[in-house]
């Protein structure tokens, strides 16, 4: 029976899944809310509204070009679709928490088994991948990247298959999986494609007779990827100036955090075991990590006559070399790559390259285990001991997660009652408004597209020219002065009105949920005392116990007209608003308080996004569009007649629509083709 179990793929695959589920049992067997750091609580009211076609404009904060558009498939469509049916505790699990745990159990297992032809080695590979320090720290907050990485091996398996068998079906499968990888995190896709291209080069060199066809398959893969992502590629190309300084930063971070030997040991410098990710200082290396590269490179050595094992050893070395960033040896190469290779500056944090080490070590250690099991000159007990040591290293890491000692995303959170009271108060109001949180918006914000949330620190930190920055005198200034300075100006009230900020909320110091918003020596009561003195803010009592809310009764609506006119408005989505006027106006100044962007246009008369693509004079001249004093949009309209349709439109959306049509068509055709090739040969 043991012999049958040992050779049973289903048994070891099931065990892989079981181990992962047991380690992350809190995510599977409880319905608690888990939120930490960048992985926040996403209220259902807002997420449900994202269930629409891709939008170039994102209705959050002051409004912005949607830089998350590449992740539309997952973070907008699937996530919002799930939110239509189930609450947060389930849609967050269905789309992110469960996949990032379960997918590696399948993908790494299949990848390692493909190389070793041994199911037990596949199981060992899963332990190495899922429970190494990098992936464990990733799962404390970067779940999009973690899930993208977890899908990567599927993509690689299908791509390898497509080259080995010259199979069109496999390359389409690979491309469709690539779509999902991008949907989770484009950065993950870059790295998976990096391995894919390395594998392609390796195949190309060793297999001269299939070079032409393999190039065609590679071309097919990238064509499908390119065309099926056209909707956001077009959007980005049209709004590229919005991303300068956001997407591409100039400095390499964590320069000496990842120096050798840390990447060689697959040790994330922030891994502190029971304390999870501790970014305050680089952590010492636990002694058992030194065994990891020994087993990995022994796995290479004992299988060095197999080209695919040499390939994965090579991937490991590249991963180690790139992860070490500015450390020795050859520390000038990373900055050169960063400055000269297109796209490389997306990796200002070299930690992303740990992925190459994770996946290759899984394969190499799996290969070592496979060799060990078939080696004749070791006794069974020696083999068991070595395998226990290997498994023990990674399971020891995992036990911190299982026992909850890692904290962060393993600790259940509870929404403070005051935020629920605030939610009910805000969301039941029909008019458009923004709520400003001091000092920053907390984890528990309840917003939707008509009831936006803003954080003051975020506002001050952004390049918002309408704000007069507090003049810091030297390095010693208080956060309190920094944040309240904005409210001490003569124009402060006008600013709040212009941005429709109807409520100012002093956030809770939520220590129970480990949300420390206020730095040392600063207390919410200081802000409350300050705001109590402002004549234009009135403290209101809405039933909250500790949360303090102030109302600004003069906040303007989303649109304003000067002089005032009668109109009706409908905004079917983030990029389009139609107005019908019931009175005549010779000249009207129309203000629209979304963040200024030249892409906003006005069309007088009937509107068709298709026509706007081809007619250069479709909209009113750009000279009539100006930036308001406080950073919003203003248009000068002339000769407005009763019954006339006026459309406010974010012009790049037309290209996004075209791209969406093409992308949808390509995805549809790919699915049809792959189904036909799979079931109807």
């Amino acid at each position, binding site marked *: 029976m043991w012999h049958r179990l040992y050779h049973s793929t289903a048994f070891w695959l099931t065990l892989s899944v079981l181990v992962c589920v047991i380690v992350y049992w809190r995510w599977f067997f409880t319905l608690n809310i888990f939120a930490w750091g960048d992985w926040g609580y996403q209220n259902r009211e807002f997420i449900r509204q994202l269930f629409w076609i891709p939008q170039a404009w994102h209705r959050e904060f002051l409004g912005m070009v949607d830089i998350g558009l590449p992740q539309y498939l997952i973070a907008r469509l699937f996530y919002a679709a799930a939110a239509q049916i189930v609450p947060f505790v389930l849609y967050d699990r269905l789309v992110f928490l469960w996949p990032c745990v379960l997918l590696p159990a399948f993908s790494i297992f299949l990848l390692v088994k493909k190389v070793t032809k041994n199911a037990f080695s596949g199981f060992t590979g899963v332990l190495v991948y899922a429970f190494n320090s990098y992936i464990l720290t990733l799962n404390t907050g970067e779940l999009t990247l973690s899930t993208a990485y977890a899908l990567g091996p599927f993509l690689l398996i299908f791509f390898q298959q497509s080259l080995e068998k010259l199979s069109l079906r496999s390359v389409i499968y690979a491309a469709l999986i690539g779509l999902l990888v991008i949907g989770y995190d484009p950065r993950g896709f870059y790295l998976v494609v990096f391995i894919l291209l390395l594998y392609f080069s390796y*195949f190309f*060199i*060793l*297999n001269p007779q299939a070079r032409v066809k393999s190039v065609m398959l590679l071309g097919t893969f990238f064509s499908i990827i390119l065309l099926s992502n056209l909707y956001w590629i077009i959007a980005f190309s049209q709004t590229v100036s919005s991303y300068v300084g956001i997407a591409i930063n100039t400095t390499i971070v964590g320069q*000496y955090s990842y*120096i*050798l*030997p840390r990447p*060689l040991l697959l040790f994330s410098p922030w891994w502190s075991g029971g304390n999870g990710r501790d970014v305050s200082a680089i952590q*010492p*290396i636990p*002694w058992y990590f*030194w065994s990891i*590269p*020994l087993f990995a*490179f022994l796995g*290479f*050595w004992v299988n*060095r*006559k197999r*080209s695919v094992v*040499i390939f994965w*050893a*090579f991937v490991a*070395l590249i991963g*180690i*070399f790139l992860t070490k960033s500015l*450390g*020795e*040896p*050859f*520390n*000038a190469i990373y900055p050169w790559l960063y400055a000269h290779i297109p796209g490389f500056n997306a990796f200002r944090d070299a930690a992303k390259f740990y992925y190459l080490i994770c996946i290759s070590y899984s394969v190499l250690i799996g290969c070592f285990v496979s060799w060990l099991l078939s080696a004749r000159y070791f006794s069974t007990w020696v083999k068991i001991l070595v395998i226990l040591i290997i498994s023990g290293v990674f399971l020891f890491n995992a036990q911190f997660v299982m026992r909850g000692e890692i904290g962060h995303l393993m600790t259940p959170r509870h929404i403070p009652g005051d935020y629920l009271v605030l939610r009910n108060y805000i969301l039941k109001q029909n008019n458009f408004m923004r709520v400003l949180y001091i000092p920053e918006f907390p984890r528990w914000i309840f917003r939707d597209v008509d009831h936006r949330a803003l954080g003051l620190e975020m506002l001050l930190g952004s390049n918002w020219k309408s704000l007069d920055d507090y003049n810091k005198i030297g390095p010693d200034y208080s956060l309190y002065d920094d944040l309240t300075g904005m409210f001490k100006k003569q124009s402060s009230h006008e600013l709040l009105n212009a941005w429709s900020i109807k409520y100012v909320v002093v956030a809770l110091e939520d220590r129970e949920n480990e949300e420390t918003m206020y730095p040392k020596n600063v207390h919410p009561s200081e802000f409350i005392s300050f705001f109590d003195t402002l004549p234009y803010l009135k403290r209101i009592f809405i039933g909250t116990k500790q949360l303090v809310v102030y109302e600004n009764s003069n906040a303007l609506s989303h649109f304003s007209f000067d002089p005032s006119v009668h109109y009706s408005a409908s905004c079917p989505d983030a990029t389009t608003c139609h107005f019908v006027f019931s009175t005549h106006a010779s000249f009207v100044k129309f203000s629209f308080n979304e963040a200024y962007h030249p892409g906003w246009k006005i069309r007088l008369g009937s509107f068709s996004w298709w026509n706007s693509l081809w007619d250069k004079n479709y909209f009113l001249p750009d000279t009539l569009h100006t930036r308001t004093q406080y950073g919003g949009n203003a248009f000068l309209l002339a000769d407005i007649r009763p019954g006339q349709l006026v459309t406010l439109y974010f012009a790049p959306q037309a290209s996004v629509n075209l791209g969406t049509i093409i992308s949808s068509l390509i995805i549809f055709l790919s699915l049809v083709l792959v189904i036909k090739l799979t079931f109807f040969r």
Partner: protein
Amino acid sequence: MHTVLTVFFIPVLLVFVWFTATAYSIIQLDPSFSILSYNHSKKDFTELPFRKILRGMQVSGEFTAEENNLGIIAVRFRSYQRVAYDDEDNIIFRLKEKNAHDWYYQHTYKSGLFYLVPFYPFGFPEIADSKNKTYVFDIVSTQGNDYNAVSIGSREPILAAKYKENMSKLLENKKEMFLFLSRKFLNAFQLVDIQFFSFVYFLPLILYFLLLFRIKYVFLVRLLAVFDYFLFLLIIIDLFYVQIQSELFYFFVLILLSVVALLNKKTGYRYLTAGFLFLLFCPFIALVKMDALEEKSASWAFLLLSVCVFQAGVYLQKKHSF
């Protein structure tokens, strides 16, 4: 033609490589072209603690200038670990002529600089008439503690005085320039670092001759068979003695290791073992908190494992197709 190539052109090319690499290392260690450097020994120090320089402690020295235009005093330090910028020690360096009342120059330096450049050059305004005059200097720690303190390195030279030549005068006179360059090149060999690196850069030529004449002389075959052990010895010297970050040194040794790996299949085993040994040496170094040495040892482990993988790939490609 083949004989001319193998006996003349290739050796000349390798000599040129040696010369260029040595000159590059000289420039890297002492980037100022017009600077002449003279080493001094330990006896030029009046106060020389080799232990960590803690707050309030000082290192003092005295020397007689050998040229005019004294502009730099270089002192060799030993750093123990890389600390955050805000935690670094602030070291005061000051210089004056002996018996002078006031210090001619005084400045504060962050101790993190010595991690990157152990033989640190303290620059100051040139003293035009410095020849044959005696100068004293102090190095004082203001915030040294057990965590961030540095000490004076024990490897010679620990002290050097550097003088700036008049470039316009040299440019006008070709003979003067040639003599200066020769003096500078030979002067650089006072440094053990240059002697060591130059020797390593010469090794490709030695290896080439071993390969060329191994058919004639059997003992050369034996030398070739153990050449990798010799390279391991050089790596150990770099780790424990030289301790300078030199990309060229890494590059040359990597090339030599790769060439030897292609010539001798058995070296793969040795590289793997050596790589593991250098790797396992790291945790012991970490116990005594010597970050620079730990990083170097891990770097060599990585390079040896890389050559191992490279060798396996090359031999496999020769034998099998995909």
